[in-house]
């Protein structure tokens, strides 16, 4: 039997992956903590499926690369949504135009390959976890019933024109609580964000079908070899980078 991972590998085995030295074309600090970063390069694909990620490392930096979800792709390059902390992020924020980055990917399974495509979803994001969901909504608008993109403060509201942001501290409601107001039977849930948010959703919706969570783990190689991001699932250990990052909630009893 061909697994989802193998099928998607076959689909991208034709050289559509890239390993590329690139530079930042545009850097917009959209809030105190977040920036939108547009990477450009001659070999970049103009399409990356929502849910997939790229690995970035500043050239000559003696550390492992960092995984970033893709906000959007266009003829200009790949746009990322970057939180201003961590080594790669510091370099992206502090001297973006002078730094050459090694960029490789895309890695991970597209969300669309792992969900029930006959269902509509409430997208629930927290912080930078909103990034792949915004990308998903752009690529699959017909599968989106509602969106909740939660941030601690409202200054991330400039993230994307026309994308409504929930400022949790100002409205005194969390993304998980707002999602509960919007969800109704028959809808699925697609969530990405901090683990406490995912746990709240998992506990509330554990008996519902079509609930999926996108997990974060420190990714090492990005290709499924090193097992640095391996997690426990009902079908044994699975790799966030290669088998995920999206998993059906029922596969993750430890989250419920």
């Amino acid at each position, binding site marked *: 039997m061909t697994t989802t991972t193998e099928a998607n590998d076959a689909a991208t085995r034709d050289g559509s992956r890239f390993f590329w030295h690139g530079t930042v074309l545009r850097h917009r600090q959209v809030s105190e903590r977040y920036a939108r970063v547009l990477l450009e390069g001659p070999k970049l694909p103009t399409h990356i499926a929502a849910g997939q990620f790229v690995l970035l490392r500043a050239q000559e930096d003696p550390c*492992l690369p960092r995984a970033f979800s893709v906000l959007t792709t266009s003829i200009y390059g790949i746009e990322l949504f970057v939180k201003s902390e961590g080594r790669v992020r510091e370099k992206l924020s502090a001297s973006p135009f002078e730094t050459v980055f090694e960029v490789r990917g895309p890695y991970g399974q597209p969300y669309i390959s792992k969900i029930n495509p006959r269902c509509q979803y409430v997208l629930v994001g927290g912080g930078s976890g909103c990034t792949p969901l915004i990308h998903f909504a752009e690529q699959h608008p017909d599968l989106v019933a509602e969106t909740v993109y939660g941030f601690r403060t409202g200054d991330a509201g400039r993230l994307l024109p026309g994308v409504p942001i929930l400022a949790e501290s100002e409205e005194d409601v969390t993304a998980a609580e707002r999602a509960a107001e919007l969800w109704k039977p028959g809808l699925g849930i697609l969530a990405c964000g901090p683990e406490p948010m995912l746990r709240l959703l998992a506990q509330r919706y554990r008996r519902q079908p079509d609930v999926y969570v996108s997990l974060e783990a*420190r990714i090492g190689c990005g*290709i499924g070899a090193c097992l640095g991001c391996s997690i426990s699932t009902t079908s044994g250990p699975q790799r966030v980078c290669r088998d995920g990052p999206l998993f059906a909630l029922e596969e993750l009893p430890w989250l419920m």
Partner: protein
Amino acid sequence: MADVRVEVFNRGFASPVVLASGPAGFGLELERELDLSSVGALTAKTITLEPRPGNPQPRLVDCPCGALNSIGLENPGVDRFADEAMPRIAALPIRLFVSVAATSPDELATLLDRLRGVQAIDAIELNLSCPNVNGGVIGDDPREVRAFTRVCVQGTGRPVLVKLPGDAGNHIEAAEAALAAGAAGLTLINTLRGLRIDRAHGRPFLYREIGGLSGPAILPVALARVYEARRAFPDAVIVGTGGICDVGGMLEMLFAGANLVGIGFAVMADPELPQRLGEELSAWLDEHGFDNVTQVTGIAHRGGFDVR
């Protein structure tokens, strides 16, 4: 072009570059990233008798010049490895070392028995130095090293490389014990035991708290262990592993006396690197007037070379 092929264990290797046990998994994912036939050997990730789920997350945390890992020997167990993974690994165009670990000599004997009929294994790497499992590091105790190595050599018809820790303090004694028990060579070193603490919460980052440090930070330690071992054991095969991220680090390891050079952390950072290292080594040898890599192996023990 200078010849980067080496001969070890009466076998030819395409280059001195060995994919170290762990980061390369079973090599199957790397097949898409690079031309494996240009790389010397793959060391398949450590296999144990029973399946191991590995340690809970977090397993990996950044360090100033590397990373701390705590994978915990996640593997499917020897039976599934032999039945399911080996047929695919054997088809890869690369020499194969298989890393094994056990908690007792008896368990090791059983494990090796299950591998007895498996073809395409060029050598066994006996991992006596994983810092990420319960029960302590076997390689810290030369008597244990001797006992495990003896069983390993008796239990396999293949050459045995014993992988030792770099932070035990009695590494020459441990290496001597391994070689006296019949090991064909040494893999030096494993990751070094280390800790990072999350400043935001005052707690260790890793679930298991202590992990193994890899990356460029450990290169000088690995070089020292290889240099000392080569001086003590002129004829032993040595796979020098630890912190090599570019051709410069690889050259130092060869100069220190390594016959083969393991790449671990750097494969995670750049999966194409092992292939490029062979090409860059050949170019460096050409530029410096050497015909083949064996001319520079251990050259630091022979007074080095004048600028060419």
